[in-house]
């Protein structure tokens, strides 16, 4: 049996495959409620007691391991929504969250497997269906999958283990308290009886779900904290279909879009005569992505609501026909709309006009010098600045960025009169299910979203307009359709990381002691301020202000939203401030953190000073900070976001006047590390991501037109530019796990700027540090 996997692959209990991500808006992080109700663990009565399930994805891989082949069960017993056990002990664990490269498809099942006390080599992982009645927060974003899943995943494993133990106790007529388990085996020491999980699976499936279970002590862990390779690794390195773009269905057509070439324009008219006459082309037409008056959600952000669509037999034919369409565009009118935003509404202003990067910079500088909104104020900063002997003031900027996951936006849709089958890469299936339902006029239960593994996301796939577009196109042509964005479409349809600006000021007395600290920051069209983070809490006189500049360029959450700019700016400023104060930059931070710990200012500080200081102390020790090495230039930074603490040191060597990053050392406190090999990989990726965007990437606009539209003009970091070595140290503190997908990339931009200063004698204030955006595109 050698059926390929993502093609219409569905087991009886599976309506979805899912992929995940690692970033989300900071709002999701704080506002999405999670609950682990017992219903998550209630058995499916239809399957309990022996429903045979087929179509497991590993069977479709063509190359199951010999062990898997030998151990293919005849029957599966579903114990709860997270797992089922085969009659021979093979266990299938559902990975609830979308897999986007953060490796939750391996690490989340590891947590279940730990509490189930199963031997990992008998575990098969499947992507869970989108089912909010069983799983909570099936979202890829905010670095929250492990943190939010921690309790529920352990409960899923532990309740199943308890049911197996009770089944054995009942079968053997012994007290359950005398039953023990180890690596997929159940034992009763006194009678010498033993059984594999498979032998008890049928009986366990009819045991009532326990109301309480005891979770393992950390010291008992055998799987958590050990390195387990990516469960999809073999499929990835052999080119098996896994991604949305790989999905195919009989009779499927290909669709592509034509969108306005500039922000601030909309479609006026189009001529499709030539395109329609081209070979393989089925139809050309206009769609409205969303209908006016329909209720939308935060993730329905899009740039262009009216699109011209080309539908044909094959991608190349459609790509060619696209070029044969001529459009007339007209300028949009200014508007302001209210959109729902996590139980509230927020106003979104869209001004008319064709915008320019130069104008955005001028507007941001003007706003930074005008009155702004005070977000936090401690003490009397104004008075402190008045009496300062020295004021250090520095401003920082960063441009728009395009997320550019390597798999371009795409989605499959087959919409019929009574059902919508939607398959593809999406970070927010829970939300987009509602959007599709509203737009198609089909009830929610008729919307079937299946999630594929995602070829990256970084926040871009939180905004699922492409899913709705595919659905609308399929409905219109009454056929299965795969919508594909070209790279140019992907890069020029907006939803960019906002452009940012920040001004930092510090007031010092004549002895270089700190009197006051002031941050005033904003962006086009959002601010990146997190006013209650360090150094708030460590400074007696503190002021945090923000402002915004409206724009018709759409923006969205980009890996570590807000933090991806403000951390670098703040950490560069602290470095320059430490130098002005004549202090070691690590010592200065530790001094302030000591104050935040022992006599904190204010009460809303949202970090733990001790853990923050912990990563700085660890990096100091691990990096040999303070020992000068000839030719090596070092910069340090530390930051807290997504519930985790990170300190980093970047080591630069200059070669022919060009900086080479010899090494990056990181100290990370994200609590318990589930899967060290994957955690280290993710940390390395975050570091390279931060260095890359801080050094090379920018989207600039001229008359509303993005000047970069593909990887020849939009520069991403490449092999030669990556650090030669990365060393990641995790704090071993046995605390509950927190985020890892995002916290690594924000501070490294500051560490890089500070190392570049040491190497070149020049401070770096404007991203991208190593190229002039005006020369790009």
């Amino acid at each position, binding site marked *: 049996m050698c059926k390929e996997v993502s093609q219409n692959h569905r087991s009886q209990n599976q309506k979805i495959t899912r992929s995940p991500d690692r970033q989300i808006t900071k709002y999701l992080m704080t506002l999405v409620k999670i609950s682990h109700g017992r219903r998550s663990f209630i058995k499916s009565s239809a399957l309990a007691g022996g429903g045979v399930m087929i179509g497991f994805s590993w069977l479709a891989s063509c190359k199951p391991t010999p062990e898997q082949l030998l151990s293919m069960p005849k029957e599966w017993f579903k114990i709860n929504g997270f797992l089922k056990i085969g009659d021979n002990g093979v266990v299938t664990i559902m990975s609830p969250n979308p897999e986007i490269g953060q490796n939750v498809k391996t690490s989340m099942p590891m947590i279940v497997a730990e509490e189930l006390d199963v031997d990992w080599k008998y575990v098969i992982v499947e992507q869970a269906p989108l089912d909010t009645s069983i799983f909570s927060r099936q979202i890829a974003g905010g670095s929250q999958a492990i943190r939010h899943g921690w309790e529920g995943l352990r409960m899923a494993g532990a309740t199943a283990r308890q049911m197996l133990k009770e089944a054995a106790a009942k079968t053997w007529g012994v007290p359950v308290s005398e039953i023990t388990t180890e690596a997929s085996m159940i034992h009763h020491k006194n009678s010498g009886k033993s059984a594999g999980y498979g032998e008890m699976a049928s009986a366990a499936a009819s045991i009532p779900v326990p109301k309480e279970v005891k979770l393992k002590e950390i010291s008992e862990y055998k799987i958590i904290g050990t390195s387990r390779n990516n469960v*999809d690794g073999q499929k990835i390195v*052999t080119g098996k279909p896994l991604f949305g773009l790989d999905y195919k269905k009989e009779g499927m057509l290909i669709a592509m879009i034509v969108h306005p070439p500039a922000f601030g324009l909309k479609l006026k008219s189009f001529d499709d005569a030539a395109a329609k006459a081209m070979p393989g082309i089925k139809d050309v037409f206009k769609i409205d992505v969303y209908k006016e008056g329909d209720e939308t959600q935060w993730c329905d952000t899009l740039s262009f609501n009216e699109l011209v669509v080309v539908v044909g037999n094959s991608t190349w034919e459609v790509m060619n026909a696209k070029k044969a369409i001529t459009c007339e565009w007209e300028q949009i009118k200014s508007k302001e709309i209210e959109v729902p935003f996590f139980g509230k509404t927020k106003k979104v202003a869209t001004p008319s006009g064709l915008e320019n990067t130069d104008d955005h910079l001028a507007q941001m500088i003007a706003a930074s010098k005008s009155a702004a909104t005070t977000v936090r104020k401690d003490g009397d900063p104004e008075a402190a600045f008045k009496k300062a002997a020295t004021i250090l003031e520095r401003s920082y900027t960063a441009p728009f960025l395009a997320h550019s996951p390597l798999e371009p936006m795409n989605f499959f849709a087959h919409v019929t009169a009574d059902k919508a089958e939607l398959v593809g890469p999406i970070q927010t299936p829970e939300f987009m299910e509602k959007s599709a339902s509203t737009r198609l006029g089909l009830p929610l239960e008729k919307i079937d979203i299946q999630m594929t593994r995602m070829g990256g996301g970084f926040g871009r796939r939180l905004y699922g307009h492409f899913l709705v577009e595919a659905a609308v196109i399929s409905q219109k042509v009454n056929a299965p359709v795969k919508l594909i964005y070209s*790279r140019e479409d992907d890069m020029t349809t907006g939803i960019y990381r906002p452009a940012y600006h920040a001004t930092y000021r510090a007031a010092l007395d004549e002895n270089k002691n700190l009197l006051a600290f002031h941050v005033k920051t904003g962006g086009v069209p959002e601010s990146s301020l997190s006013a209650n983070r360090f150094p708030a809490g460590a400074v007696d006189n503190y002021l945090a202000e923000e402002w915004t500049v409206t724009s018709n360029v759409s923006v969205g959450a980009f890996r570590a939203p807000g933090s991806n700019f403000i951390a670098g700016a703040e950490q560069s400023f602290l470095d320059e401030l430490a130098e002005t104060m004549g202090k070691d930059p690590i010592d200065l931070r530790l001094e302030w953190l000591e104050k935040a710990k022992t006599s904190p200012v204010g009460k809303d500080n949202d970090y733990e000073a001790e853990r923050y200081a912990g990563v700085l102390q660890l990096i100091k020790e691990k990096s040999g900070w303070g020992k000068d090495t000839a030719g090596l230039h070092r910069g340090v930074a530390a930051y807290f976001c997504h519930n985790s603490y990170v300190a980093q040191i970047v080591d630069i060597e200059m070669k022919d006047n060009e900086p080479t990053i010899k090494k990056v050392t990181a100290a990370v406190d994200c609590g318990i590390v589930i899967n060290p090999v994957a955690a280290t990989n993710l940390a390395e990726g975050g570091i390279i991501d931060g260095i890359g965007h801080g050094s090379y990437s920018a989207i600039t606009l001229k008359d509303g037109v993005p000047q970069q539209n593909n990887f020849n003009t939009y520069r991403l970091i490449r092999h030669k530019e990556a650090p030669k070595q990365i060393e990641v140290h995790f704090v071993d503190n046995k605390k509950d796990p927190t985020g890892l997908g995002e916290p690594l990339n924000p501070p490294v931009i500051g560490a890089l700027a500070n190392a570049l200063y040491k190497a070149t004698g020049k401070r770096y204030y404007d991203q991208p540090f190593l190229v002039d955006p005006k020369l790009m595109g």
Partner: protein
Amino acid sequence: MATFNLNINGTNQTVDVDPTTPILWVLRDHLDMVGTKFGCGIASCGACTIHLDDTAVRACVLPISVVGDKKITTIEGLSESGDHPVQKAWLEHDVPQCGYCQAGQIMTAVALLKENANPSDDEIESVMHGNLCRCGTYTRIKAAVKTAAKNM
């Protein structure tokens, strides 16, 4: 439209397509071989890297009409059982994050090691420079190439 005979992974295939069709779309749309990925369409990201005879090329800009009788190798045909030393090294180092670029990375690495059995760090970086990894697995890729070189 025209008929072309191709040798892909040792198997003869006949397709009837527009002569300008890039091999990438012949593979993906017409032959259901989707291991070769679409990333940019302008030979800038390397996700579509395949071998034409033993040379790594970008399938997204390679029209079918210029292939002639050269042999095409894709990620699907790199090894019978997914156990080419480069594939094994990729698994050993647990290289992939999202995984989308890795087929192209592997194909470039295999071509490199055919030409240069024991490449230096600089040589690895230079040859791999054309393959983007948006997740940032570069340091692992380099380590995996070195491991593969040792095992070949």
